[in-house]
């Protein structure tokens, strides 16, 4: 018994140890010299040498260290190791090289230095990974695979919250529509906007059961009640193209916190914060609030106002030195005692009167009282002649009011 048994054990010990060592050596090779990134970087180094014409270029090639590289982006909470393979991303001479060594196309890197932005903030994918499949994120259990080139513009809206942006037509169309439809009058976006509807800061992340998100947003924008039965959102009468554009924008709202210094417009124009609590609002609420619903209810009237001189009447005098004299008629909700106003230009409340009470009614579901509170007497022209003074014709009114003493301008009497 002794000999066979001991021999087996000795054999197991010997061959087991050798095999384990061999496998560990293989694993070490596989992790370093055998790794894909190692081949890519060696290839890049060779190309640097092959191209080096001057001494300086040869020194650059010699100094190139074949090792894993990463972009550490604490502000964005990311570590991007993409440049471990895409090592020529900023090297203009690699323009015609094969992937992964090719340089970044376009001039976008000029405004978006990789040390500040990294890669995955725009491209998505798994920045921490260092193998192609893992890094590109087309693997199970990675929620954000790399965006296809034609989908890349989705990322612009992460930081460019205002628009327009040269060379990104789909984004421009979407953002213009977004402002036109005044979505933020009801929906909170990045801490600003109304609360009549759900917050949309992370609209792209919200799950909608079995329906793919893109499809859900499109249906929802075309006809809110088709996907949310109890939806109070008005039908926006969007064309298919418009709904597609807004869907694209919704899909870009990932809710990912972006540091202020990365935003295109670090201090966006404050939207009436009184809308945060409409029940506590007093006086004027701003046209955006009205448009939020009425754009969908009777778009002709709203578009008519938009195209009329009233909506842009402030624009014409904003450079006037004596503009304080004009504010009573060129703004909405002007308070002659304080000189403050609620909105530039003549908005909804310029004629219909302060809307806070009416908003309270409609949010409480009392549509009749809402109408009553805001209705204009169709026979009354008093509201018009408040500004449209029949005794001061349009052509001469500017000179007339410039001569008035400062800030006394109660136009029209």
């Amino acid at each position: 018994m002794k000999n066979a048994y001991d021999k087996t054990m000795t054999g197991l010990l010997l061959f087991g140890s050798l095999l384990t060592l061999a496998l560990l050596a293989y694993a070490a090779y596989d992790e370093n010299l055998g790794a894909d990134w190692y081949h890519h970087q060696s290839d890049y180094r060779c190309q640097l040498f092959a191209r080096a014409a001057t001494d300086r270029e040869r020194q650059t090639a010699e100094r190139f260290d074949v090792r894993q590289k990463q972009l550490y982006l604490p502000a964005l909470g990311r570590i991007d190791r993409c440049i471990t393979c895409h090592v020529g991303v900023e090297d203009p001479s690699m323009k015609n090289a094969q992937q992964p060594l090719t340089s970044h196309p376009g001039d976008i890197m000029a405004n978006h230095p990789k040390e500040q932005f990294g890669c995955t903030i725009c491209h998505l994918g798994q920045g921490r990974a260092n193998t192609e499949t893992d890094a590109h994120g087309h693997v199970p259990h990675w929620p954000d695979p790399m965006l296809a080139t034609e989908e890349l513009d989705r990322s612009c809206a992460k930081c460019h919250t205002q628009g327009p942006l040269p060379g990104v037509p789909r984004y421009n169309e979407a953002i213009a529509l977004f402002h036109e439809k005044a979505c933020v009058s009801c929906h909170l976006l990045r801490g600003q906007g109304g609360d009549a509807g759900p917050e949309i800061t992370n609209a792209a992340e919200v799950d909608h059961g079995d329906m793919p998100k893109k499809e859900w947003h499109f249906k929802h924008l075309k006809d809110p009640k088709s996907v949310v039965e109890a939806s109070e959102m008005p039908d926006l009468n969007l064309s298919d193209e418009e709904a597609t554009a807004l869907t694209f924008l919704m899909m870009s709202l990932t809710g990912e916190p972006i540091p202020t210094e990365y935003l295109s417009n670090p201090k966006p124009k404050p939207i009436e914060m009184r809308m945060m609590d409409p029940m506590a609002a007093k006086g004027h609420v701003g046209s955006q609030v009205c448009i939020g619903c009425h754009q969908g209810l009777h778009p002709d009237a709203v578009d008519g106002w938009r195209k009329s001189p009233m909506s842009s009447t402030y624009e014409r005098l904003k450079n006037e030195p004596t503009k304080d004299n004009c504010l009573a008629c060129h703004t909405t909700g002007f308070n002659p005692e304080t000189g403050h106003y609620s909105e530039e230009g003549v908005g909804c409340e310029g004629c219909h009167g302060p809307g806070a009470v009416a908003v309270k009614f409609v949010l409480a579901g009392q549509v009749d009282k809402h109408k009553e509170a805001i209705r204009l007497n169709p026979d009354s022209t008093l509201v018009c002649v408040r500004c449209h003074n029949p005794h001061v014709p349009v052509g001469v009114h500017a000179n007339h009011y410039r001569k008035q003493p400062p800030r006394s301008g109660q136009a029209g009497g």
Partner: protein
Amino acid sequence: MAYSAGRQFLSNLKNVPRNLRDSVMRHGRPTSDRARTQTVVQNFFLHIHPSRVHNHTLKWTTTMGLGIMTTALFLILTVTGILLMVYYKPSVATAFDSIKDIHFVVPTGRMMRNVHRWAAHGMVVMVMMHMARAFYTSAYKRPREFNWVLGMMLFVLTLGLSFTGYLLPWDQLAFWAVTIGSSIAGSPSEVTDAFGITQSFDPGGRIRELLLGAHYIGEEALIRFYTLHIMVLPIALSVILGVHFWRIRKDGGLARPASADPPITQDGLKPGEAPDKTFGLMAVVRERTPATDQAIENTSPAWPRLFRVEAALTVLVLLITVVLSIWLDAPLKELANPEVPENPAKAPWYFLGLQELVSYSAFMGGMVIPGIVVVGLALIPYLDREDEDVGIWFSGRQGRRIATASTVYGIVLSVGILAFTVKFKWLGEWDWVRNLIGEVPPIVITLFNPGTVFVLAAAAWSIGLLRVTNSTRMAAIGLFTCFLVCFVIMTYFATFLRGPNWDFYWSQADWPVIEH
């Protein structure tokens, strides 16, 4: 003088290796039996071993090396665990990313994590197989009762270590598995709910709170699990493991049948035993003192035979974990998201049998039945005190037949109960019951569900064996086998045949697809 001191120095220099070795070893090369004994006895690390080991112990069929392999896995886990600790950051914000970094860029990190994972699963398997081996060879019998109890503690600690480690990656798998596990801990609420006293008396909630440090799984739970995983449980396990080994020696080595030794001589002594000469120190060992001047028959010096086996089996399990680790990565799902439940959310595999029972009744399946099993197992040596046939697999032919019959009975029983439950559901969903008594009170389900039916049927089988064979050992074999078979079947069933909403599916391919 100077010349001679210089020569002396050169000679000292030449002898450094030998003198260094002698000062460390305190004895010569282990070429004689005496030196071999000293090698063990005088070495801090080896002296937990006996200096001589019985040949029966070294036989492959005695232990199959399961205990050694379990210990080897624990060593591998300790080493890889310490290496992982260097890079792992136990905080909700960083844990997941640090695992990603370990996987992708930490030198050998992926290998270390994979080995750790596979060794952990292996240790759970090995510790169970080791327990089954000890049971079936009657190794728990007098004087080894308490070492069996220590073994049970080690078993529970191993599960605890594995379970606490499960949360640390902070991915969806971890988060939801621990959600299931911790709600099992909170299952006494089912009973207090049934009596409507949870408001004032909520032991389930308290246990869960103690485990998680909060009402949800977050930062507090992670740091608790981490502390348990890297410090409390490993230290407890190491200490008890030490006692476990020490008791092997104090209890007279591994259990072996009487036939392993030559027949007792006329004066009641085995050959090689001294008639009356005893060592004071050796007296605490429950064996007759060996004669001091000659080797005992049927024993071999531990050096090198036992150590060679230990080294060879350690290398074997290392080799297996390395092979698995090269080809199969430890899973890492999405970052934990408390708002997106996994469906199905499954506990770690060794708790899946329990989860199946929990799906019938959380309290019965999660607390009472495992409680009965653990306490019942620990009490086996005190309930079955038949001393015959120690060290013989299944205690002989009758035991083998009973184990076979019990395997068949266990398979029929657990498959039958599972099939019945899948096909017909249970009390609460039966129309005729509802027509008869209306809504079934939850406490009735708690007391009478497929889990309790199984336990009762297994107990009945065991009591039947006790009557027929008139042997507690045979009754114990029947019960143990039933539970072992049931554990394997339930684990398989819950792992592979339970899908979303804990519904039954023949294969994962039939699971309904949920798009996100």
